[in-house]
């Protein structure tokens, strides 16, 4: 007989629940007590167990779509004509909890394979959602939206613009394996060294006073399929550009695979946001609270430079520093930005 599976009442605020993974495909048989799908509520992601033994015949709520508690999410064909509560789980010992093995074939190969599979299916489903004219936001996106709005509305930003000679940096990158060294590494290192000289940039404004941000980290803003994250690079002043680059790339891989360990919000002191790869010449970023500043990095481009009454062309990069005026003055931030430029121009 046909059994209609409804979305369980799992959210804490009656908000819709999003499907982030189906662990069985139509045609597959499922057992009562085995996880059938994974959902994201307003509070957490969790597995939802099948309430019957049967065959999954139809998935109604597709990947990435949401359903409210009580709404039909899937249809199963069950052998028993009895009410679904007939307990015919596997003859486990009385103490055994329901099996937790996924129904779909176990992911093979590299760690994070299962997460990566989620991500791929999520991307496939995203197309359909946009066609409906509404894009439901993930918890991460909603959090980012709230924090950015709060920052822009409550933090008194001011902005300092300058540029730096990028040629020493280009030479240093060419000297190592250029494909494997991301540009952000140089900016993270320069910011970290500048913070050592301008310690006040390591403070945040809190309750009418300045409090030192304990975590010695410089953040890097990354965009993972439209979702914003800040990857904190810990103790960056003591690392080489290569180490920073490797660490950053590993974090991006983790985020792309949906590994929750990398999604955890961890504070930094200053963040670097680089849009050079999108051909942006310069831009004004929004501070990531509770940090004191954020450095917007544009693309490296050939720029005419006047020197000794003659004009030459130099590879330069535009930098915009957005600063929390409650933490430092314009003068102090200006000196800090100069120190960043100095670090970048070291050959």
């Amino acid at each position: 007989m046909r059994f209609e599976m409804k979305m369980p009442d799992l959210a804490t605020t009656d908000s819709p629940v999003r499907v982030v993974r189906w662990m069985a495909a139509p045609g597959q048989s499922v057992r009562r007590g085995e996880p059938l799908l994974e959902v994201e509520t307003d509070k957490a992601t969790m597995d939802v167990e099948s309430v019957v033994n049967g065959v999954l015949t139809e998935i109604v709520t597709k990947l990435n779509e949401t359903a409210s508690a009580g709404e039909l999410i899937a249809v199963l064909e069950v052998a028993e004509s009895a009410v679904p509560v007939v307990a015919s789980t596997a003859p486990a010992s009385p103490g055994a909890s329901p099996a937790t093995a996924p129904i779909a074939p176990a992911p093979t190969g590299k760690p994070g394979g299962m997460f990566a599979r989620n991500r791929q299916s999520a991307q496939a489903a995203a197309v359909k959602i946009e066609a409906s004219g509404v894009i439901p936001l993930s918890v991460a996106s909603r959090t980012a939206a709230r924090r950015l709005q709060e920052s822009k509305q409550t933090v008194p930003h001011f902005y300092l613009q300058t540029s730096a000679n990028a040629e020493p940096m280009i030479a240093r990158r060419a000297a190592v394996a250029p494909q494997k060294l991301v540009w952000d590494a140089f900016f993270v290192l320069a910011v970290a060294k500048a913070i050592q000289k301008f310690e006040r940039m390591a403070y945040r404004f809190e309750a009418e006073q300045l409090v030192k941000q304990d975590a010695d980290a410089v953040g890097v803003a990354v965009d993972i399929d439209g979702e914003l994250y800040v990857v904190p690079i810990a103790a960056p002043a003591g690392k080489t550009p290569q180490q920073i680059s490797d660490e950053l790339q590993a974090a991006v891989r983790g985020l792309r695979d949906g590994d929750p360990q990398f999604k955890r919000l961890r504070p930094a002191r200053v963040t670097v946001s680089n849009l050079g790869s999108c051909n942006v010449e310069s831009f004004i970023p929004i501070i990531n609270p509770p940090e004191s500043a954020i450095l917007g990095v544009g693309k490296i481009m050939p720029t005419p430079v006047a020197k000794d009454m003659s004009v030459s062309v130099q590879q330069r990069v535009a930098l915009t520093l957005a600063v929390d005026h409650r933490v430092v003055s314009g003068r102090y931030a200006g000196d800090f930005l100069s120190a960043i430029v100095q670090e970048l121009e070291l050959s």
Partner: protein
Amino acid sequence: MTVATHNIDAGSVAYTPPFLLELYRKMVVIREFEDGVKFLFLEGSMPGTIHQCQGQEATAVGVCAALRGDDFITSTFRGHGHALAKGLTVNELLFELFGASTGCCAGKGGSMHVGNMDKGMVPGIAIVAGGVPLAAGMGLAFKMQKSPQIVACFFGDGAVAEGAFHEGINLAAIWNLPVIFVCENNLYGASTRIDKVMKIPVVAERAKSYGIRGQTVDGNDVLKVYEATLHAADECRRGQGPVLLELLTYRRTGHSRRDPCHYQPKDEREQWAMHDPIDRFGKFLVQRGEIDEAGMQVIRTTVISEFNASVAEARRQPMPTVGDLTTDVFAPAAEDRS
């Protein structure tokens, strides 16, 4: 905190086979009730959220088996096991969870407030540590009435840092009230592990500061729980109460059905699963020759079919009406009762 690994033994106590088998059956009733209710919640038959006690069956059953029929218990938001152990029927409990007017609280309590005063269970007090001062008050009443009754007050490790815990235990201590304070220490107050919120590793040590006796017991050994409670109840009846019992156990589910329980480390879960109270007691019964595997399977099958029959009945129960809104709101004044 280490998991108790010893095998259950009866020590010097002479147990009768029917008594032992009834302890086992009761734990199975609780386990199957909780598992069944989990699916009712998932399929949408059960409203609200639920707080379940799979893995903690021995605490409820061991304590209640050592109490007399007219003794009382107070319970918490996680009270299904306490209710079944204290003698409430599957029907009256399940009907309550369905919100039916035939439930133990006429459908007005729901999962977090199950109880039946006629069976010695105050409807569950869902405020953490809320039952502790209440139990002290009941103990005071019994003492003033010179009644031999006692109270067993269930609460979790999360309650120990509440102000109400201190006030209730202190009051009971200074007046030697007949209360057994039963801490079901399952290591987590919602998602917070106990060592993050308590400096000393043993809850029972708190007893010293109130000048009462404290004891830590393997809460997954139903006989140890039973014996410790029997001893504590005897002290209480002789005016030597109160007693603080700490029962070490582990919850096999999230705090509530909405909690995926990601904070319990996998190896910790597995370690405790190896020492499941029902499995351990079953092994003890088999070794003692009281029952065999087939017999245990019969108990389980019977319990499940009884539960399923209750579910079928629960779906047909009447719901409260608007007229019921004003009933059960006030209790008669004390002098009117006589």
